């Protein structure tokens, strides 16, 4: 589903590479933790998958397509197959829960009837039924992140990318979010999650890819957060 072939990325104006010679293959339906200290290259890894940046060297294949060869006008199409969740939720504060989720479908031109049917379904899936008309301000952090996950998942993407989704949440709430991501993963969606949260990684026992200074230093199926802890 996602394949990195000898990928290096150096940002403009920087001498040090953010990623160096990374080779990773993530299969369809896998759940992968991306761990490493701040600045190890996790965010660069995710941005490259989203094609927010181009690689400096090497190729990235997402769903069978070489991102370097993707014409820029096809990038939006590609992104529709990837859902994204961030630490800071990124909800629109003046839209209700349902409107925030519907927004993702409206802007890619889905018909209204489809939106009316899909949005309640996905809100129920993430456990927010009954809160459709609340504004983000009126929700707890965990609930806001559920809205963000609903928005990322409402178009049934093949891949879900989560950049520290539990970074702003307390441990109890985080467990709920992880259960939700696990449930989404069980529907066949590939999940790639960058995290600092040791206990979550240790509990879930999923594949762990550790980055350090832009290198992959560890890649274990059913791994734990790491030996340094």
């Amino acid at each position: 589903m996602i394949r990195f072939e000898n990928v290096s990325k150096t940002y403009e104006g920087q001498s040090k590479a953010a990623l160096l010679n990374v080779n990773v293959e993530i299969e369809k339906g896998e759940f992968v933790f991306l761990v490493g200290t701040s600045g190890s290259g996790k965010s660069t890894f995710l941005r490259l998958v989203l094609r927010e940046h181009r690689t400096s060297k090497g190729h990235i294949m997402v769903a069978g397509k070489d991102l370097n060869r993707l014409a820029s006008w096809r990038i939006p199409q590609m992104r529709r197959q990837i859902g994204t969740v961030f630490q800071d939720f990124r909800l629109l504060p003046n839209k209700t829960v349902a409107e925030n989720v519907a927004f993702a479908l409206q802007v890619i031109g889905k018909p209204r009837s489809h939106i009316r049917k899909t949005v309640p379904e996905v809100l129920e899936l993430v456990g927010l039924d009954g809160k459709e008309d609340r504004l983000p301000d009126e929700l707890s952090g965990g609930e806001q992140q559920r809205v963000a996950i609903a928005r990322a998942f409402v178009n049934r993407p093949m891949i879900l990318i989560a950049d520290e989704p539990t970074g702003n949440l307390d441990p109890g709430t985080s467990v709920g979010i992880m259960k939700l991501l696990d449930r989404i993963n069980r529907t066949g969606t590939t999940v790639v999650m960058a995290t600092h949260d040791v206990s979550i990684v240790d509990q879930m026992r999923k594949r762990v890819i550790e980055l350090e200074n832009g290198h992959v230093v560890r890649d274990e199926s059913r791994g734990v957060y790491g030996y340094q802890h």
Partner: protein
Amino acid sequence: MRLNYILSDLGIGLKRNLSMTIAVVVTIWVSLSLFGSALLAREQVELMKGNWYDKIQISVFLCTKDSGGRGCSGAEVTQEQKNRIRQVIESNPDTAPDGVFGESKKEAFEQFKKLYKDSPIVSTVTEDQMQESFRVKLKDPQRYQNLVSAVAGLPGVDTVQDLRQYLDPLFKALNGLQVGALVAAALLLVAALMQISNTIRLAAYARRREIGIMRLVGASNFYIQLPFLLEAVLAALIGAVLACGTLWVGVYFVVMQRAQETFRVWQWVGATETFRATLIMVVVGLVLAVVPTFLTTRKYLKV
């Protein structure tokens, strides 16, 4: 593409940037009005040149009973005098070959009736009161002095009118107006361009959250650009329509109501020319709105 979302976006965008949008509209309005006036001034010059200037450069008016010119003796010009005058003109080296046209009283009256067709004056004038004339075309319109002095004072010649003498200052004034209007219009249009790109920058900043999410979930670039484009197009259209209205009002009051009444001898720009000018203005207005919008949105909404 769901039109209602886009339209609601457009409404929100316009409200948010109302003062900037008004500034853009006013700038486009004024600049396009000036631009349109310049176009009309140009049409006017072309009309005058086409109708008169290139065909006839000198008119030699012949004596009637009432004329008091130097060559007149209180009587009508005689056939003999006419032949003599024609001969002098035709033999002059500056006269174009076959460049002499005699205008009879009848023809002069027809022309008069045509020019003053809506005026009560027509009924008070008779064919007999018209003046016969020779219309002369020159080889080189610049060299008229020689012929004028050769003909002036001949028996039977009332006055010699050199059209250049009258038209040149007018053309100079019209050309000056045209250049001035064009320069002012160009400056204002540059200002409009910068205003538009500033407005878009502000709007893109105000909507950065939405835009960020749109990009993330894979909205097409066109979809993201569209509200900005519509905003710019709407502002440009309003400005262009106001400018067209201004031009029509100007043509109606200045040309149709006054100039045409006062200077009937010339053909003046009318509805056809104004319509043509307004079409050009609308197109220019739209291009000026769409092009910078595309460029600016591409810059600020980069994928």
